[in-house]
């Protein structure tokens, strides 16, 4: 299959036509900032679950994770339980309180809970910084995939990603993005599940596949990674998931607390389907092509040579969807953080709804261009950037969110210094002792979160408690907008 394959062109054209149509529909149903950033609190459990899954599944899953299963076999699959533990923490301790609060951005929560504009500004700035790095990985992945499969220059592919995703995100906000992500999730699940029988039949069935790849290296069918390594990776992903701003903002868009809980469950089921399929496809590709020059090539070679043109086209659109859905969610969070938390609070507090909508849309475009430049510089490989940003998010945000929502005594000084300590601790450990991780087994995310937690407790104990009216929203009787 080539870039000018008629089937691929038709499948891609239909996909973009639907995406554009939904974005235009969203534009005409967006009248104010609550519509743009929270879809008017109208999202139900099925669309909500698909949104949470689409946000979680990124270029890293289709390229990096599939490649990791290709190289190391089965055992990487167990890190999903770390992610799901993060979702469980969110469902138990974070999501219900955030949804009852019913704000628009994550920094809204920080500002209200800790009665501090300083904490709000710091959290918005850290979110923009970290997610700009995350966006870099997504742009880089788009460039690498297009280059590997079609020989398209990475710059062209990155420009196309920025233009298409930036356009539909800026046009319809969270409302149309949610329905587009539902479509993208359906495409991802369909492509992966339909690919399973094709790949498995190529290698003569599951048992034959296991026997063959096990003969290459027994660790492929057993345990390539030690329990300690799996635990460290799982913990980093789980901590980041429990307090991931791009997931948390989506809770605000759902109808009510019950919808949020069900959406998280549906999202985990979708993730299990996707994760299990990616594992089997990675193993299958090892069976078909045992010695590819790079594991990251497994998914693109599978789409272009193993599958039929129609299924291969669907798989490529699914890869595109994985990247677009993540880019879209990040742009919504960073754009909202800039427009709602920085511009409205610090620059123009008297801004009208019309002006705020415009600034939200412009921020999305501008904040999409910055990581585009970083991606051109290629500072690291895709999977490494995805993992590192997750560790930083966990380090500065897990404690103010999870402890902040469940421990009344936390103060604004505690929140600010815990974010600074967590971020700095993760940064220093990453560039020093992380290199000898194999010896000590202590990951930078664990260090960041531990430092952040200790700082939060000690500083909060030594400073003045948060005013009761701010705490009542999170610890007292249920208040806040809730519909449905």
């Amino acid at each position, binding site marked *: 299959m080539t870039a000018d394959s008629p089937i691929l062109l038709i499948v891609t054209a239909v996909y973009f036509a639907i995406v554009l149509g939904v974005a235009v529909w969203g534009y005409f149903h967006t009248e104010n900032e609550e519509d743009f950033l929270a879809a008017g609190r109208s999202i139900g459990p099925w669309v909500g679950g698909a949104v949470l899954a689409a946000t979680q599944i990124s270029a890293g899953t289709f390229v990096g994770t599939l490649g990791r299963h290709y190289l190391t076999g*089965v*055992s990487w*699959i*167990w890190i*999903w*339980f770390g992610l*799901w533990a993060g979702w*469980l923490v969110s*469902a138990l301790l974070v999501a219900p309180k955030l949804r009852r609060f019913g704000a628009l951005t994550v920094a809204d929560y920080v500002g209200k809970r800790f009665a501090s504009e300083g904490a709000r500004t710091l959290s918005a700035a850290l979110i923009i910084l970290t997610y700009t790095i995350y966006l870099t990985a997504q742009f880089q992945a788009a460039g690498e995939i297009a280059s590997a499969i079609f020989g398209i220059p990475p710059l062209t592919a990155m420009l196309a990603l920025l233009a298409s995703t930036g356009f539909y995100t800026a046009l319809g906000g969270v409302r149309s993005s949610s329905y587009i992500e539902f479509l993208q999730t359906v495409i991802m699940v369909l492509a992966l599940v339909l690919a399973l029988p094709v790949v498995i039949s190529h290698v003569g069935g*599951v*048992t*034959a*596949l*296991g*026997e063959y790849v*096990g003969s290459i290296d027994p660790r492929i*069918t*057993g*345990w390539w990674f030690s329990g300690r390594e799996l635990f460290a990776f799982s913990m980093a992903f789980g901590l980041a998931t429990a307090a991931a701003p791009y997931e948390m903002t989506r809770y605000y868009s759902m109808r009510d*607390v*019950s919808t949020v*809980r*069900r959406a*998280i*469950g549906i999202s*985990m*089921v979708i993730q*299990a389907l996707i994760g*299990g399929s990616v*594992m089997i496809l990675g193993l299958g590709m090892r069976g078909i092509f045992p010695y590819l020059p790079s594991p990251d090539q497994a998914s693109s070679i599978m789409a272009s040579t193993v599958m039929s043109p129609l299924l291969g086209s669907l798989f490529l659109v699914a890869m595109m969807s994985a990247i677009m859905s993540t880019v879209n969610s990040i742009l919504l969070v960073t754009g909202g953080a800039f427009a709602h938390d920085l511009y409205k609070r610090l620059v123009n507090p008297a801004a009208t709804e019309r002006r705020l909508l415009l600034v939200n849309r412009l921020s999305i475009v501008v904040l999409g261009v910055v990581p585009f430049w970083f991606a051109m510089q290629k500072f690291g490989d895709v999977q490494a950037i995805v993992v590192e940003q997750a560790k930083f998010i966990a380090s500065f945000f897990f404690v103010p969110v999870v402890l902040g929502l469940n421990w009344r005594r936390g103060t604004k000084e505690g929140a600010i210094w815990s974010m600074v300590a967590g971020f700095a601790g993760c940064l220093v450990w990453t560039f020093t002792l992380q290199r000898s991780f194999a010896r000590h087994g202590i990951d930078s995310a664990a260090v960041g979160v531990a430092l952040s937690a200790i700082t939060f407790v000690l500083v909060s104990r030594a400073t003045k408690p948060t005013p009761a009216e701010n705490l009542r929203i999170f610890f007292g009787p249920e208040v806040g907008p809730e519909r449905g």
Partner: protein
Amino acid sequence: MNGMGFGWSFYGFFAAAAVWMVLYFAWALAVDARDHRRDQR
């Protein structure tokens, strides 16, 4: 697991994931029912 191609790391994942999902939904539905009863009081 001899004769099945893969070991516990493979089949165990699917079994554990299924148990996890069932327990999660049982909890979520129980909490919904509790909240519903409380709202009706």
